């Protein structure tokens, strides 16, 4: 297969999905439907919301009465995102596939991950999730417990997450209650990560927008946000296509690669992604004012 780009898209797909995997861990805290099925922008995906159910006593109605009033679904409309880059055939020939991997993978992964996160971030406004706590300039462990209390009362689904901007996340690393009596041996000191705290996974979202509402983080159950992903139907004559799937999350990425008329190699990473509001009461916004 030497002197051919047939295998390059598959190699890039595996590289990009590995890089994206590390940039979208917070998606594990949402209700999701990730598939590698091909579709197109505007496709509606029904995402079941992870919630709670109430069992009823068996009666003459038998099993025909539904007890899943709280296990509903949200409709997510997929958007088509792509990141394209162009490479000189001479560079590719001279430096090989490693050059392509190094030059394309990190940028494409960041671009695609940010596009996906942007869809989620756009939902995090008061109009969608009215519950909020003004946690000020910094976040304390006690305020996390307050947010947890709100989720508990709303019976938010599991798993739960705290998603924080860098200021809040790094501020928590110095919280005396998280360090506690362990001092320098506390996990947050050695790992630099908050990890699992107050019954929830904590994630740092470096580019979390304020949404002009002083947003600095949020606490949520898995049923608060519904996300879905798929792959676009892409057939470009003369282009090679490959797909890679993250076996843990199910998220897939598609790589297209071919030579343009100009002579340049065009490399594109693409996917369908969308997000929608799930149960509005299962998310608490943490604001600085």
């Amino acid at each position, binding site marked *: *297969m030497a002197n051919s780009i047939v*295998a390059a898209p598959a*190699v890039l797909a*595996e590289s990009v999905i590995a890089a994206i995997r590390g940039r979208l861990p917070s998606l594990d805290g949402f209700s999701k439907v990730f598939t590698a099925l091909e579709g197109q922008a505007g496709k509606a995906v029904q995402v079941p919301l992870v919630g709670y159910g109430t069992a009823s006593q068996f009666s003459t109605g038998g099993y025909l009465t539904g007890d899943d009033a709280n296990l509903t679904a949200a409709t997510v409309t997929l958007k088509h995102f792509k990141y394209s880059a162009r490479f000189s055939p001479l560079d590719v020939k001279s430096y090989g*596939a490693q050059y392509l991997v190094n030059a394309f993978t990190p940028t494409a992964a960041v671009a695609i991950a940010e596009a996906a996160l942007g869809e989620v971030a756009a939902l995090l406004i008061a109009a969608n999730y009215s519950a909020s706590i003004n946690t000020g300039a910094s976040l304390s462990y006690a305020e996390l417990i307050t947010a947890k209390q709100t989720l508990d009362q709303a019976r938010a689904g599991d798993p739960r997450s705290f998603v924080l901007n860098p200021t809040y996340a790094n501020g928590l690393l110095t919280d005396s209650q998280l360090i506690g009596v362990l001092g320098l041996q506390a996990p947050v000191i050695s790992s630099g990560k908050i990890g699992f705290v107050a019954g929830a996974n904590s994630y740092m979202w470096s580019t979390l927008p304020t949404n002009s509402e002083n947003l600095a983080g949020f606490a949520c159950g898995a049923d608060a946000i519904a996300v879905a992903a798929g792959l676009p139907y892409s057939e470009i004559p003369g282009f090679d296509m490959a797909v890679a799937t993250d076996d843990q999350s199910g998220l897939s990425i598609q790589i297209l690669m071919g030579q343009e008329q100009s002579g340049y190699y065009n490399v594109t990473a693409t996917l369908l992604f969308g997000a929608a509001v799930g149960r509005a009461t299962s998310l608490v916004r943490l604001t600085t004012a």
Partner: protein
Amino acid sequence: MTIEEQLSAAVATATALTGERDDLRATIEKLTVGASAELESLKVEAAAKDAKVAELSASLEAMGAELAALKAKATDLEQSKVSASKQAAVIAASVGVAPTALPVEGAATPEAVNHLEKFMSLPVGKERTDYFNAHKAAIIKAAI
């Protein structure tokens, strides 16, 4: 011819005939004796050949038995040779040497694994991703 002359001629003829008869008798007797001797000789010769055939048959049978014994011996030796190889491998392993079979002359040597080809032949998913992560450098190097 007178009577005396005729008698004398008859006596001479009779004598001649008698002599001839005696000669013929002697010849016949001689021939009879010779044939008997020849027959006797042939019988002796046949008996000798029968004996020789019997001797050779016995020899052949003995050689067949000897050949079977030799074949059995050869099989035993071959098996003991394999056991010796195994024993040698066990001894080598006991002192920390991993025994490796030497390539047999004329046998095809295994080709180096083509990781890119193997990677491309796998279906998209965990198995392919795991294989990519395990042989990333080789796959990327061979990709273009």
